[in-house]
């Protein structure tokens, strides 16, 4: 803040001289302009009364103008800082509105299951995939490779898991839906994910998934060409005090 003031004070006589010279050239001839320039130097050392009042007025004018300019610049700086703080919630709102970055567009209504009407014209193939993490020794596989559903209709699908070892193993699973955009329309009413499931030695169980595809899937123009949705489950071993490893992260 002080630096511009200092600069201004050193430059102001120069500025006033330049301004006067410019004014002079528009109104007087070259000769008189030369006289004026020659006269400028003694004028700065021994200012006459008229000249000093005029230069003081001009200097004051310059100062007030510079002050307003600096105020504007300071306000713009503060505005920029405020905008950078406000950008976080603003960006979040923008992402929610446009669905960028995979954020959920809106939460779905759980009472919708009761009132939704199946869109019978739109048949979607849901394929199933089963994966296990390398450390878990379960045999995990889907019992059907695909199923044809329509949006708005609840559907049931089965996976099978077997523990071939001699000790009980606790597994916990997570799922993935491809394509990602369709994932927001894929609603699971009940399944077997995110909770620890214990299998005793040599035990085999059926694991159902009860889901439906939101009827609004048919209205979304981005989903117009989507005919296949893949549901993929991955089982991990659950150990005491260990967090569920999210797909893609490695914790060790």
């Amino acid at each position, binding site marked *: 803040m002080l630096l511009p003031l200092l600069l201004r004070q050193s430059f102001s006589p120069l500025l006033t001289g330049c301004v006067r010279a410019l004014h002079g050239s528009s109104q007087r001839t070259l000769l008189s302009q030369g006289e004026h320039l020659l006269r400028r130097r003694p004028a700065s050392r021994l200012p006459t009364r008229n000249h000093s009042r005029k230069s003081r007025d001009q200097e004051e004018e310059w100062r007030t103008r510079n002050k307003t300019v600096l105020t504007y610049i300071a306000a713009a700086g503060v505005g920029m800082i405020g905008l950078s703080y406000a950008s976080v919630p603003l960006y979040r709102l923008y992402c929610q509105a446009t669905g*960028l*970055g*995979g*954020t*959920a567009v809106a939460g779905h209504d*759980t009472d919708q*299951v*009761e009132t*939704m009407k*199946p869109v*019978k014209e739109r048949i979607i193939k849901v394929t199933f995939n089963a994966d296990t993490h390398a450390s878990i020794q379960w045999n995990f596989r889907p*019992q*059907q490779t*695909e*199923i*044809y*559903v*329509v949006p708005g*209709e*609840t*559907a*049931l699908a*089965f996976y099978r898991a077997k523990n071939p070892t001699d000790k009980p193993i606790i597994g916990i699973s*997570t*799922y*993935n*839906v*491809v394509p*990602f*955009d369709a*994932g927001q329309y894929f*609603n*699971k*009413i*009940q*399944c*077997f*994910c*995110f*909770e620890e*499931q*214990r*299998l*005793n030695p040599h*035990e085999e*169980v*059926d*694991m*159902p998934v*009860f889901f*439906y595809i939101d009827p609004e899937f048919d209205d979304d123009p981005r989903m117009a060409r989507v005919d296949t949705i893949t549901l993929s489950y991955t089982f991990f071993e659950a150990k005491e005090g260990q967090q569920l490893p999210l*797909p*893609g992260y490695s914790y060790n």
Partner: protein
Amino acid sequence: MSTAMNFGTKSFKPRAPDKGSFPLDHFGECKAFKEKFMQCLRENTFDNSKCRLQSKEYLECRMDHQLMAREPLQKLGFKDLMDPPPSQEGSKP
């Protein structure tokens, strides 16, 4: 694909199921109903719309054996299978 940590690329965000997790059917109490459902699926080229009755029966079996929280079947989307009077069947699409 959900491993891509690029800013701006879409990533999948798993959501918890609405009604939570199914308890495991350790004793195979509803295995018969499941087999009926799978049989129906195989016969109908895996068309879910044709096997809704079997899926309803499987869920009812689960509820009977305390393997699922009891809920009115309308809430599970089986409203169209619940109409008992045959006179109304014609009006339903």
